[in-house]
């Protein structure tokens, strides 16, 4: 038996060619998301079995129209392909093209071919060819391109075995020759001199290093200096790049003239009909608004059931373990720290999954590009980009994937502004905070006879979040002194029926990113919190004794006594002391030290607010009756003012505070990663929290 050979494959293609679906077909659930060394862009990798003797490690590179990058996503393709170390450079490149846009797809193919790495071309969506009147002379095309060309349908899983065989064949042969050798046609003398610099690299590789200013490790210091000399005449470089592209298209046109025929009479104009509605000046916006309504409605409606289920299950597990395990510090850590911590992470999954399902469907169908088209002018007024709409919508689930979704924006200024304002949108972590505060201060009445006043308040908070995001973007646009070219081009792909498989994988991936990103921090914090709340200086240890002796003459049930002790313990714990020490600062906002504790604990993750208040108002863990928490909060008296702790002015002040304040460590961490400096996350932290403080102060002083 032959030994097992593993082939490293890089999967490359234009956006909207079905590349991701092919990746999912080849690898199944056998994939993982990692990081490219040194950059933050996710690296999607999967394993596939090609034959009895060959396996493959496939890297799904971001979709791009050309090897010359204009955004962070696209620059990964160039970096991966220029790398020459044995460990990470691909053995075989698999280029995916879409049968309908073959001409444009072949531009990228021709560039890749010139790198002189073994390449296989897969032409996808052949199931659509007949309908669209396309016919391809496969043999002639293979000969002209000097490449194995396989016709596939990723959707119908056709041609995949042929593709696998072709990859093995290509790997074994391991010969590669350039397709166009285009550079010599531009300026033979110039490129001869370029080639002389390094014999180990193809002429096209050297050209890319010069034009893209990207030098792999395989280039020596001396070689690099020689290459830099070629950069001196910038206008010449630009001119040659233009010429190169035109020559490539001439060559592609020549090849396709003989091998690729489109019968235009067969074309149906579904795209035209749909575009007339979806990009219409009035109906287009109306339709987009309807879709947004549908999304938000379903986040609330569909997610509430699984969320309640998760909530209940974790409470049950906690109380079950509390009964079964012998009491002690470890049991407390488990039942009061770790398990509620995990529950606190998992509870957000339903909302996040539903939101990303919608976003994946909108992207898969091609509709998202129409939204980008409709929104670009409006967003540009505020210093952003049509593409900023996607992060802003994602932000209503969680700011972390939203910040990552800005990578497609090629202008650095527009991207930065989008990153900076995204945390203002109402993420799912704010919801439990809003829910309990609204229940406390807004009467459960209907306005106009049918619309719930509480629901209306929640809607207003969403509007407040979006409005603040947009307004601060406007201010940032005026104040940020960053020069960056804002070149904008978006492909409007053909409308497609979404692939269930792609949507499913996308949802799994995004949810995983949240659980691993924010989840770790939330979990770690709940453990720290538990420690701070259940330990304290000397006085803490005497609390139980003092309370018992203090109120021994009162006629209290055992439950009430225990609650009193728990409350007093919290007051004397480390966290209680912290709450008391910030009380002077938060008094003008209407809060007392108990709210102060919740503010401190929720500084790292907002949703901890509710859990902390539940602990403060000493609700027994095995009695998960939220109405009791609410009742206790409602009746609590602020010792400073003599009024109710959660009266209307305080409630509104808190709502405003949570709408604006930057209380999410995970978001700060991801912003640091994406912007590569602590400057921007710190600006977010102090800017947003400062705004929160000032606005809450004003609101409270006016209302009280």
């Amino acid at each position, binding site marked *: 038996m032959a030994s097992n050979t593993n082939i490293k494959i890089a999967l490359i293609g234009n956006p909207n060619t079905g590349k991701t679906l092919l990746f999912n077909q080849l690898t199944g659930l056998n994939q993982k998301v990692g990081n490219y060394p040194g950059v933050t862009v996710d690296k999607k990798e999967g394993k596939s079995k090609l034959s009895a003797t060959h396996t493959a490690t496939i890297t799904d590179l971001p979709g791009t*129209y*050309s090897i*010359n990058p*204009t955004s962070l996503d696209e620059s990964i393709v160039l970096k991966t392909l220029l790398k020459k170390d044995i460990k990470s450079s691909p053995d075989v490149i698999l280029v995916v093209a879409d049968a309908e*846009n073959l*001409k*444009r797809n072949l*531009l990228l193919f021709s560039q890749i071919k010139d790198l002189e790495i073994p390449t296989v071309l897969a032409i996808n969506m052949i199931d659509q060819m007949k309908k669209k009147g396309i016919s391809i002379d496969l043999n002639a095309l293979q000969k002209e391109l000097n490449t194995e060309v396989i016709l596939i349908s990723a959707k119908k899983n056709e041609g995949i075995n042929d593709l696998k065989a072709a990859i093995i064949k290509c790997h074994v042969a391991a010969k590669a020759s350039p397709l166009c050798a285009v550079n010599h046609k531009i300026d033979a003398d110039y490129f001869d001199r370029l080639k002389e610099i390094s014999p180990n690299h193809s002429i096209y590789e050297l050209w890319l290093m010069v034009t893209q200013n990207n030098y792999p490790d395989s280039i020596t210091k001396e070689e690099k200096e020689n290459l830099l000399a070629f950069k001196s005449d910038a206008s010449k470089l*630009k*001119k040659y*790049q*233009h010429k190169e*592209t*035109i020559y490539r*298209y001439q060559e592609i046109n020549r090849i396709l003239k003989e091998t690729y025929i489109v019968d235009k009479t067969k074309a149906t104009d579904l*795209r*035209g009909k749909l*575009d*007339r509605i979806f*990009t*219409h*000046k009035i109906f287009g916006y109306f339709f987009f608004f309807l879709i947004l309504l549908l999304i938000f409605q379903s986040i609330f409606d569909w997610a509430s059931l699984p969320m309640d289920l998760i909530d209940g299950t974790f409470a049950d597990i906690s109380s079950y373990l509390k009964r079964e395990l012998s009491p002690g510090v470890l049991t407390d850590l488990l039942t009061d720290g770790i398990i509620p911590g995990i529950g606190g992470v998992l509870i957000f999954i339903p909302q996040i999954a539903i939101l990303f399902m919608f976003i994946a469907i909108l992207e898969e169908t091609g509709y998202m*590009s129409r939204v*980008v*088209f*409709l929104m*670009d*002018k409006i967003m540009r007024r505020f210093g952003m980009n*049509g593409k900023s709409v996607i992060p802003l919508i994602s932000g209503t689930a969680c700011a972390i994937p939203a910040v990552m979704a800005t990578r497609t924006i090629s202008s650095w200024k527009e991207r930065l502004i989008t990153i900076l304002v995204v945390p203002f949108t109402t993420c799912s972590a704010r919801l439990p905070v809003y829910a309990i505060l609204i229940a406390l201060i807004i009467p459960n009445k209907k306005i106009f006879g049918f619309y719930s006043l509480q629901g209306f308040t929640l809607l207003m908070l969403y509007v407040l979040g979006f409005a603040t995001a947009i307004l601060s973007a406007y201010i940032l646009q005026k104040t940020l002194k960053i020069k960056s070219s804002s*070149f*904008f*081009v*978006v*492909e*409007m*792909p*053909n409308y497609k029926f979404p692939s269930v498989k792609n949507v499913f994988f996308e949802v799994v991936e995004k949810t995983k990113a949240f659980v691993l990103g924010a989840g770790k921090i939330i979990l770690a914090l709940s453990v720290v919190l538990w420690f701070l709340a259940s330990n304290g200086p000397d006085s803490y240890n005497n609390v139980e004794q003092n309370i018992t002796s203090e109120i021994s003459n009162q006629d209290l049930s055992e439950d009430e006594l225990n609650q009193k002790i728990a409350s007093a313990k919290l007051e004397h714990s480390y966290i209680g002391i912290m709450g008391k020490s910030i009380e002077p600062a938060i008094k003008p906002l209407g809060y007392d030290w108990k709210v102060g504790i919740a503010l401190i604990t929720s500084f790292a993750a907002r949703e901890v607010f509710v859990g902390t208040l539940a602990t403060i108002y000493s609700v027994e863990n095995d009695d998960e009756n939220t109405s009791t928490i609410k009742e206790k909060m409602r009746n609590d008296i602020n010792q400073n003012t003599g009024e109710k702790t959660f009266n209307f002015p305080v409630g509104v002040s808190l709502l405003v505070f949570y709408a604006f304040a930057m209380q999410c460590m995970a978001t700060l961490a991801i912003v640091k990663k994406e912007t590569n400096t602590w400057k921007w996350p710190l600006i977010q932290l102090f800017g947003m929290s400062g705004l929160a403080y000032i606005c809450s102060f004003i609101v409270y002083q006016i209302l009280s």
Partner: protein
Amino acid sequence: MILNTYLCHPKLFFLSTIASLLKGEIGYISEESLDEIPLKLLEMGCLPGAEVQLIQLAPLKDPIYINVNGSHLAIRKETAAIIKIIKAH
């Protein structure tokens, strides 16, 4: 084809830019603006001689939605204004 006609009977045509196209109108990208066309647009099919049709305009005529050579693209008005085309009278 149309370019040849243009060269033989220049009076039948006039120079303009993509930004001046009306909805549904067709023009042909002229050689003249080659150096100004951003590389990315060239790569996506905006080549000299290519047929451009304006499909849709967003409010305030910005951005615009065009079909160049079978590529359906949305570009901003400022970009459209630097790509010269020839149009029939």
